[in-house]
């Protein structure tokens, strides 16, 4: 669904709102016409009766016009806020449907601006569209028609004035749309700098670089300001030019009208009416000129929203939501991966098999592709070549939820959300009971520090878990994944902030509490993986060797080096 489709949801409002507005506008237009009757029939004929009758009619029109406009305003508020709400939902949903790589590529800052600033602009444009934009053309066209009834010749002036004004509006709009797109892009940049200022505050202050960051923000803001002023210059000519053309029209009407009055073709009251119509047109057009800016921004913003809405996820989920039994649990066949816009393979020719309840260790240097492999096992990315079979079926056959509930990944970068601990632990399934959470906390060696406070599971966690230590965060993240009770647990360097004793206690508790759970330990520490059934050694994305600790010690040079780097010191002691 594109932006326009969201408009269609409010078809009724988009049609009825302006119709009521039209009725109001027609009534309003009739007022000067009736006034002309008062002047020309009432005053000139000294007819008090006509004056009161027509006067009362005008009052009735005014009051019913008010009723109509309230209805229109109501429709406008429903449609504009409705379109905005529906667009925000659609954007947020789309973002969540996209793959990790796509979202990462877009960046959170631009997504934030699009959900906020851009949708706001569209919302405003919709409100104005219903409330004003339709009214204005009615008034303008209506005025011209009524003027035509009074005097066809002088109406030519009206038409000329309007053509000129239309040209002005069109060309300013055309000129400024690209500007507004660029401005929204610069607001993205502004948001980026600001959110980096917030998320990187410790590093920024540690380098005493606050002033520099603040300056960076101010430059971005200044950039926005200058573009706004520049585009403002284009828009600034609209109102004065409209005024100029309308007034020229009035002057011409007075001159030629005077000639016609002289020739007996026109009454002076009719000249008054014509001038009034031009004034009406002017007032309506001022509104149009003002909302032209809003529309222009709205167009620019809806293009940006469409950019997101039209994205298709790089891959989608399968339909399988039951896990077949009696197959090899996990089979990786000649797996390879590279990022979309990268020219290096992050993984090449990876093959291994894991049976239920086994432990697989993965070890390798920094940047050797360990995390990437974990992401592939969770289908956060799709393999570029090769296959991953989970119980005999390819990962892409499964529904995401089925897959990710069965293969629980503890990410290397621990991420906790602001809210209670219970909320964080119940992320995969809010119905998880306290008992299961407590068990998970115990296994993750987090029970003690959690229940040291009386809040326990209701303890408040700040954004990103900033009120916890690194090791505490890691353990809570492990507990969170354990709450899923996955068949395969992948721990991506999840013990790095733990001391060795806790590391050991955690691994033992994992084994004894969940004896049938398959575990994949990605680690830098030989001690964490040496009892694994098999160990996969990665080096620069390649599978160097696969085997048990003892086998690798004999056969794998890389593994030996790693081993020496960790035990070398001890040997000399």
């Amino acid at each position, binding site marked *: 669904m594109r932006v326009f489709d969201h408009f269609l949801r409010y078809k009724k409002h988009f049609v009825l709102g302006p119709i009521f507005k039209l009725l109001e506008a027609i009534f309003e237009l009739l007022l000067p016409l009736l006034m002309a009757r008062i002047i020309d029939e009432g005053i000139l004929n000294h007819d008090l009766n006509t004056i009161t009758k027509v006067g009362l009619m005008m009052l009735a029109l005014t009051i019913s016009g008010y009723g109509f406009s309230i209805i229109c305003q109501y429709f406008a508020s*429903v449609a504009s806020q409705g379109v905005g709400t529906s667009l925000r*939902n659609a954007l947020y949903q789309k973002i969540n449907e996209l793959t990790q790589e796509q979202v990462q590529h877009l960046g959170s800052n631009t997504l*934030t601006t699009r959900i906020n600033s851009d949708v706001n602009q569209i919302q405003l444009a919709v409100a104005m569209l219903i409330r004003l934009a339709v009214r204005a053309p009615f008034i303008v066209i209506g005025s011209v028609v009524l003027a035509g009834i009074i005097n066809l010749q002088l109406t030519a002036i009206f038409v000329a004035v309007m053509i000129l004004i239309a040209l002005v509006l069109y060309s300013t709009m055309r000129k400024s749309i690209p500007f507004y797109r660029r401005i929204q892009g610069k607001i993205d940049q502004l948001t980026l700098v600001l959110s980096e200022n917030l998320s990187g505050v410790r*590093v920024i202050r540690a380098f*005493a670089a606050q002033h520099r960051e603040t300056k960076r923000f101010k430059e971005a803001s200044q950039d926005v300001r200058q573009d*706004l002023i520049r585009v403002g210059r284009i828009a600034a000519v609209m109102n004065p030019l409209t005024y100029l053309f309308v007034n020229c029209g009035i002057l011409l009407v007075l001159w030629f009208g005077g000639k016609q009055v002289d020739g007996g073709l026109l009454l002076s009251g009719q000249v008054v009416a014509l001038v009034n119509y031009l004034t009406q047109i002017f007032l309506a057009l001022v509104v149009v000129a003002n909302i032209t800016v809003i529309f222009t921004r709205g167009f620019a913003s809806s293009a940006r929203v469409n950019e997101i809405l039209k994205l298709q996820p790089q891959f989608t989920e399968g339909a399988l939501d039951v896990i077949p039994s009696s197959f090899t649990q996990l089979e990786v066949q000649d797996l390879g991966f590279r990022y979309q816009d990268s020219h290096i393979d992050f993984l090449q020719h990876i093959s291994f098999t894991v049976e239920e309840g086994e432990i697989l260790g993965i070890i390798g240097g920094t940047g050797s592709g360990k995390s990437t492999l974990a992401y592939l096992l969770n289908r956060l990315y799709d393999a570029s070549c090769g296959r991953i079979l989970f119980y005999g079926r390819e990962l892409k056959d499964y529904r995401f939820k089925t897959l990710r509930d069965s293969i629980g990944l503890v990410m290397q970068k621990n991420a906790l959300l602001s809210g209670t601990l219970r909320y964080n632990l119940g992320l995969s399934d809010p119905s998880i009971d306290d008992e299961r959470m407590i068990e998970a906390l115990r296994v993750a060696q987090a029970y003690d520090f959690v229940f040291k406070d009386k809040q326990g599971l209701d303890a408040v966690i700040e954004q990103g878990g900033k009120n916890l230590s690194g090791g505490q965060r890691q353990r809570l993240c492990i507990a969170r994944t354990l709450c899923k009770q996955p068949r395969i647990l992948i721990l991506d360097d999840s013990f790095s902030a733990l001391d060795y004793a806790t590391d050991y206690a955690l691994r033992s508790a994992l084994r004894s509490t969940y004896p049938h759970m398959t575990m994949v330990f990605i680690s830098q520490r030989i001690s964490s993986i040496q009892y694994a059934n098999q160990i996969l050694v990665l080096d620069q994305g390649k599978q160097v060797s696969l085997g048990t600790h003892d086998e690798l010690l004999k056969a794998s040079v890389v593994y030996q080096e790693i081993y020496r780097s960790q035990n070398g010191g001890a040997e000399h002691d």
Partner: protein
Amino acid sequence: MTKMVWNRILELLKGYRHLMVLALLFACLQVVFSLIIPIYTGYAIDQMLGVAQVNFSALVGIISKMAVFTVIAVFAQWGLTLTLNQLSYSIIHRLRCESVDVIEHLPIKTLDERAHGDFISRVVTDVEIISDGLIQGLPQLFSGILTILGTLAFMFSISASITLIVLISTPISMIVASQISKKSYSRFKQQSATRGELTGYANEFLENPMLVRVFSYQEETIHLFSEINQRLYSSGQKAQFYSSLTNPSTRLINNTLYTLIGIIGAISAMNGGMSVGSLSAFLVYSTQFMKPFNEISGVLTELQNALASLQRVIDLLDMKQEIEPEGLHELSAIDGAIDMQDVAFSYTDKPFIEHFSMTIEPKRIVAIVGPTGCGKTTLINLIMRFYEINSGVIRIDDWSLDDISKDSLRHSIGMVLQDSWLFKGTIKENIAYGRPDASDEEIIQVAKETYLHDFILRMKDGYDTVVSEEDTGISQGQKQLLCLARVILSNPPVLILDEATSNIDTRTERAIQVTIDRMMEQKTSIIIAHRLSTIEKADKIIVMKDGRIIETGKHQELLSKHGFYSQLYQAQFENQ
């Protein structure tokens, strides 16, 4: 709408006095000349008495005068728009700058406690709404009032009695408008608060796309988002509807007025009280008179919206900042002795660290070990003055931290944290973060020393490849190496490594150890690490538990004590 807010508005406009004056001038010109024109229209019509009775020479005179007035009004309006643009966009810019100036000085605690998205919503969206409403609105209000006054004056000059009718109706429309805007203000306030909540919520998940996917949280988060969004809809729809009633309501009053003027004017003209031309001018005025009322009432609701946003921005600007007193000592070349005496600190109301004392001699390597959550990182936070101690004193080279400027303190300390942080920029910029003036050679040199060079060269644009924290194409360990390279390049006299190599594999770690060792020469270094191999060489090891120091000494001394340290140390071999 308190008086305080108005004071803030005036304060905000202060620096732009010349623009304000210019805007007023243009507005006056525009109002006066666009008001004169209808009078002359009336004159012109009065020249058209009937068939063959049109006074063309007078008509030409009138029309040419009108042409001149039009031109003046056009230029005045153009000038007004340009001035207002300048004014309003400058104020947006200024509000944003003031906001980040405040954020720059907010305690880290405040930043940790609040949703970052809410800050973003205030600085980006709320500021925009302020400028749309307030800045564009105030002058409109002004020129509206001018128009009303001017119109009244002109009308009086034509007919006093009819003008009185107009005057009587004025309070009515003002009352209606203010009633409506009162109603909408509270809705607008609610709307912008909910908008901040929505941004805060969404932002947390947008920054963690992987978390949502790994926990299949999409449906739930979409659902929760749409719930907040629904609340935003309902407050937004109400705010918009109530506020949009102002215009039709004043129009109702004004059209009624128009009709009444017509009827009364017609009767009086019938009785010879006024000419048809005057009546026509009068009618044009009453339309003119309506226009500013409509505008003002429209502006009033925009103002409500703007004020609601302004309140949120003011709340941000008024947040408690950490402002340093003037004349603090600027640390320069220091030895790097660190001394903590009887320090107490707590994150909440529960004491976390009490009676804590520790001394670190200059140019020594000190390691802090202990179970997670024992307060190691807290110590770093205190030394860096990310958090303020409750009592006691921390000294660096005999200077109490309270007496030296934070910037100079932090310039003297290089810190690498476990949580790496890259900003969106090139690799080069990221490495040179602490020393933006570093040459390419120096950058490449440290990249080589941290074993990043080969990896960087393999990337798409080498050192100019743009990376960000969200980037998964660069591993956590590599991010840590980048952070390490940053500090090596800036070369400060004190070094703090808080689990700085936890995601780096041991082979690489071993390889860069040479670099780290060299960096630590002639420096005071504080190391926090679980890998005990990295701390064996420390001159002093401080063992912490529950916010207290329980053991201190060298590696061998501590081992022979068979205390807590020795247990920790044995753990890494026992469990293999």
